[in-house]
């Protein structure tokens, strides 16, 4: 397993953000983490990345605690993590020097595919920013990609491009956990959907199996999370 969460709990002060969350990701799987705002999606991704320590339960990244397996997962936050005045190519050069997993050739290919403009982040639209950040994230060769809302609030063309890039970059040995509430657009690329509500997993199911039962992911989203 690339990622295993067992009975994970996380509280912020006294407010529970995750309760009894269990989840596994096998190599090659693309899993949608679906939930409304405040459901705990970001917390779950950060716990999986080792950026937050759980208060209870167990997290294993390639069989190890996430902090020991650091560098094996890429976490893409919802908001751009890079300085506003830098250009993506500059960030790529920096990462190439600092992170042995960052593949500059792959970045160039991704930047082309995702049409990343050569200008500072400050001068980019939300969609351009999202595409640049995804190119920088996917250029790292790791077994796990944790993507927080890569489709939120961006234009249709950028969303389309991002989904195509995710399919284009799909590898049998890497797993992707992608949080979104843009269910109808993204659901095609998922193997599985995990529905999160109030910090709990309400349903974890194969999406084609769901469709075979005559249900759609969108309907199930409304049903489970209402």
């Amino acid at each position, binding site marked *: 397993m690339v990622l295993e969460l067992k009975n994970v709990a996380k509280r912020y002060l006294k407010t529970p953000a995750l309760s009894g969350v269990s989840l596994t990701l096998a190599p090659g799987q693309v899993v949608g983490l679906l939930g409304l705002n405040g459901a705990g999606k970001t917390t779950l991704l950060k716990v999986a990345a080792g950026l937050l320590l759980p208060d209870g339960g167990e997290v294993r990244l390639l069989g190890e605690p996430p902090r020991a397996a650091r560098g094996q997962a890429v976490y893409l936050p919802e908001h751009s993590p890079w300085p506003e005045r830098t250009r993506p190519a500059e960030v790529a050069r920096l990462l190439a020097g600092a992170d042995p997993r960052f593949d500059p050739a792959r970045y160039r290919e991704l930047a082309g595919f995702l049409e990343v403009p050569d200008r500072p982040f400050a001068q980019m639209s939300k969609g351009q920013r999202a595409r640049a950040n995804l190119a920088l994230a996917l250029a790292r060769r790791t077994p796990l990609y944790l993507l927080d809302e890569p489709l939120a609030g961006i234009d249709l063309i950028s969303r389309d491009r991002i989904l195509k890039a995710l399919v284009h970059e799909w590898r049998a040995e890497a797993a992707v956990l992608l949080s979104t509430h843009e269910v109808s657009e993204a659901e095609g690329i998922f193997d599985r959907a995990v529905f999160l509500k109030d910090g709990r997993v309400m349903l974890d199911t194969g999406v*084609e199996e769901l469709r075979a039962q005559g249900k759609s992911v969108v309907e199930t989203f409304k049903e489970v999370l209402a």
Partner: protein
Amino acid sequence: MRWRVDPEAGPIFEQIADAVMAALARGELGPGDKLPSARALAEELKVNPNTVIRAFELLEHRGITETRRGLGTFVREDVDVDALKAARLREAARRYLAEVRALGLGLDAAQAALEEVERKDGTRA
């Protein structure tokens, strides 16, 4: 051919397999033709590559396609296009007949309507 799937309309892998069979029945695809690679088709449809692989497996299981190692997926030379055509026609007839019955009408009315439509719109189709 143009590929389309609707994630709201049942399993995507079945829709992809059906699209190939429909294209064969209509003559848009023929025996020996090469299908796009699973990855290219997955990208075009924005679906998981595993889903396309599953569709190709289903087609192979049904004796419609074959995988040639290192070359890709091809429509089999011995594919029975007439059988695919007949099956599709029966399926369309079944849907039409269900609608005719729902209207409380019978075969005569159905036949008459087909002939009338053929006369009026046939040249356009």
